């Protein structure tokens, strides 16, 4: 489908919920909705707009907010869904009911950026060790890696 066709489907099905819908590069589009509309948007993307594949989820620290970017794909188009949440209470609802393939991606984002996915059945750490301190998220901007000094230096 072309950008115009997908845009029409999304505008028909998500009336008044689209904050931003752009086409920055050929075969790339970005959709921004409120986090409360996330599940409904995912359903529309999968069932109406033909985005059958979830490539991955990127977690990002924007400074004052946390952002989750869902990268969806279909033949000829890659769509990025942008959701934002407050840093004080970083929660999003899980999308594994619509995209079961999201199960590991959501765990990874939880590990590294610290967004809680409400309704996710298994929020154990996936990539960080078990003894990693609670509440420390390495991909946030306030976390810096300090290499320990070696014995010989």
């Amino acid at each position, binding site marked *: 489908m072309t950008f115009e066709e997908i845009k029409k489907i999304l505008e028909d099905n998500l009336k008044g919920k689209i904050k931003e819908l752009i086409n*920055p590069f050929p075969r790339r589009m970005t959709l921004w909705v409120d986090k409360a509309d996330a599940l409904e948007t995912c359903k529309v993307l999968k069932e109406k707009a033909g985005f059958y594949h979830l490539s991955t989820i990127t977690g990002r620290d924007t400074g004052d907010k946390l952002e989750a970017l869902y990268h969806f794909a279909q033949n000829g188009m890659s769509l*990025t869904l942008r959701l934002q949440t407050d840093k004080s209470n970083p929660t999003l609802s899980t999308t594994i009911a619509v995209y079961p*393939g999201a199960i*590991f991606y959501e765990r990874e984002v939880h590990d590294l950026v610290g967004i809680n996915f409400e309704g996710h059945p298994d929020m154990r750490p996936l990539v960080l060790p078990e003894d990693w301190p609670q509440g420390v998220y390495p991909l946030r901007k306030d976390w810096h*890696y300090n290499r320990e000094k070696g014995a010989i230096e």
Partner: protein
Amino acid sequence: MSTFILPVGPQHPALKEPTSFRFMVDGETVVDADLRLGYNHRGIEKGCEERTYIQDLYLLERVCGICSNVHMTVFAQGVEKLMGIEPPKRGLFIRCLMGELERVHSHLLWLGVAGHEVGFDTFFMYTWRDREIVEDILEMISGNRVNYGMQTFGGVRRDLDEMQIKKALDGIAALKARTPYYLNIGASEPTLVARIAGVGVLPKAKALELNAAGPTTRASGVDFDVRKDDPYAGFGEHIPFNIVTDEGGDVLARVVVRAKELMESYNICEYILKNLPAGDIRVKAPRKVPEGEVVSRAEAQRGECIHYIRSNGTDKPDRVKVRAPTLANWPATLYMLRGGYVADIPIVMAAIDPCLSCTDRMAIITDPKGNEKVWNWETLRQYGIDFYRKRGIKL
């Protein structure tokens, strides 16, 4: 009968890099599977934020040894989009050529490993001998057998001359003559087929639902290939190729898909080498990147590789996200293992070509009351071979 928990890993579940599995087994049958990653988490994404773009290019090449070139390609073409530069056609063709040569060496490596896991070491010796041909071509072009360092912002770093093109064509011709033999063995040799047919089945609906990628999903009949869906470098408009799919959905189908993809890759390489456009191989790239964000994708040998890059106007990126194809295939692998035999674990895990590193150590606890039995990977592999030997499948 009660179920036992069978821990596999973290050292060496299948090929390279450590990962840890917990299999719930009921006698010979795997009832459920669980996964723990991160033993090789090196913080490359955070590292990228602290380095300049050109440093990141070489850091990202080291995400993986087998698909080093594809990570470099994805990052380079993403940053090129942000910079607003377009590499010359000759550069794009050489970029494609490197990607396809890398696919050839990886698929030949995988065919050998698959043979080894089921106890068919002759197959392993044959394919790895032929893999040397493509390694020699890669070394001749880039100077290296792995981590070629060929891609850069605005094109590629090394050109090909007439002598190199001729040698590469000779090598491809030799591989093209041999590969049909492997396809024939993989698809019709009765003992091998008895080990891999109907093992690790992934139906098409599940492949779509669990967002699998690469040959794993194509062997389940889904024609998902980034080279066609989202053409990059020279693919699509300039370089013709076909997508290989198979309806089988089992390990046999994955062997067939990879062997047929080898033939497609040879055709692509030949086409590129014979139709290499004249001109420059790269354009000059700026040091600072304008503010913006981009999603860049490419088809690695194991499936879709995707990078998300966000720039903030300086010479360092604000965020780089890397998703290599193996992570996309784990949910599907756990599905495939359920209901299968313990003896099939090695080949089912190897069938997605996981990017894990080998240390040859693994523990199995067969009795939760403390009656422990510790096996290493070699023992499990041998157990699988003996299991089928007793049932008359002798490779």
